[in-house]
């Protein structure tokens, strides 16, 4: 059986595990170097989802409760591509986020901002044949965290993607343009390459914006591409 491995990204375009300015990494990041694992069948396979896993309304976070959530309604859409520009079809995208006040509907979040009974802040969808996904949600608020004195996270939406393999699994965060907290946020600044950091910022998109209803943002996501040459397994 001939199989094709996935290419490794330039290390400067991904965060290191240990980043002192993000304090939680110091007791959780491995201290020994990772062992480079040439891909086998175990790494080039991964969970493949079907339509049975995703409900029709799961991509509209504003319609999961009897009433409408408070805040600025937004549409977040984009394409999931591999590093060769091929769309990833039928691929699971999961998101989660804080509400408009910067509070998560989570028992561990004790930020003194109101919960919204009409907003949970979780959604999922499958990409279409062009690799496109789309969510309707509320613009999340910034919130304080205790990483350092007067620390605030920029507004963000968490994204989880599977792609086609264990090797393409990605969890990341999408940020909003013009956020003054972005350049002083240790989580985003953990990525050494400036362009790679800035690619986590969505673009405001008037073409996605719907008149009298919601602002639109575009956020494309790139997962790893395959090596050109197969190997024997």
């Amino acid at each position: 059986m001939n199989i094709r491995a996935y290419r490794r990204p330039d290390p400067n375009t991904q965060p290191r595990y240990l980043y002192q300015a993000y304090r939680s990494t110091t007791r959780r990041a491995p201290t020994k170097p990772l062992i480079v694992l040439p891909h086998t069948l175990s790494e080039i396979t991964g969970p493949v989802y079907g339509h049975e896993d995703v409900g029709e309304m799961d991509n509209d976070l504003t319609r999961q409760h009897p009433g409408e959530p408070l805040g600025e309604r937004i549409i977040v859409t984009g394409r999931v591509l591999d590093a060769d520009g091929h769309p990833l079809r039928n691929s699971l995208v999961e998101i989660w986020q804080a509400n408009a006040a910067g509070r998560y509907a989570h028992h561990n979040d004790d930020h003194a901002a109101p919960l919204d009974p009409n907003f949970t802040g979780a959604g999922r969808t499958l990409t279409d044949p062009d690799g496109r996904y789309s969510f309707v949600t509320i613009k999340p608020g910034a919130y304080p965290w205790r990483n350092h004195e007067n620390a605030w996270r920029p507004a963000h939406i968490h994204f989880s993607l599977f792609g086609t393999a264990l090797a393409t699994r990605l969890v990341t965060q999408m940020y909003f343009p013009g956020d003054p907290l972005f350049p002083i946020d240790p989580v985003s600044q953990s990525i050494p390459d400036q362009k790679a950091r800035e690619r986590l910022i969505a673009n405001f998109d008037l073409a996605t914006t719907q008149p009298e209803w919601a602002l639109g943002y575009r956020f494309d996501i790139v997962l790893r591409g395959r090596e050109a040459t197969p190997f024997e397994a």
Partner: protein
Amino acid sequence: MKLVPTASQTAGPFLHLGLTDKGSVGGMVGQTAIGELVRIRIYILDGDGAPVSDAVVEVWQADAQGRYRHPDDLRPTGCDPTWRGFGRLAVDQQGCCVFESVKPGRVPGRGNTVQAPHLNISIFARGLLKQLVTRMYFAGDESNLADPVLALVPEGRRETLMAQPDNSHPGSWCFEIRLCGENETVFFDV
């Protein structure tokens, strides 16, 4: 066209909202699964040896015959039709989660090698800017000696990849993952 893969970011402390509140899978076997049933208890500890209580663990494994449910597993004999091979759980306050599964079969490695039975494990948590990926092998399995991936690991650290049998509960295995510090688990750059 070559594009740069999107950077990873931490899943943060509220990851359950998106990953496990609706998407938990602990029972990986149906009524009719083929193979040796196993109960796998995974513990996650930090650099102080304290439980990591806010992690999510994902498991990916082959079926009892060593087949992956995936279009790139091109071998003519297919996978157990009831098998998916994916599990995902949040750990509890003790840093523990339990998967009910079958012992995977052996999967081909590179060249003419055959890998020993193993689970591919990914860990997501606050403080991890990227997921950590490791493997769990079954202590005492003879095929471990010929496993081509274990052979990449310095001999003194291979033990960190071995689940230990719980002798008071046949079929139960315990796997401790130490994120950093003493007896740090081996993690892989996949």
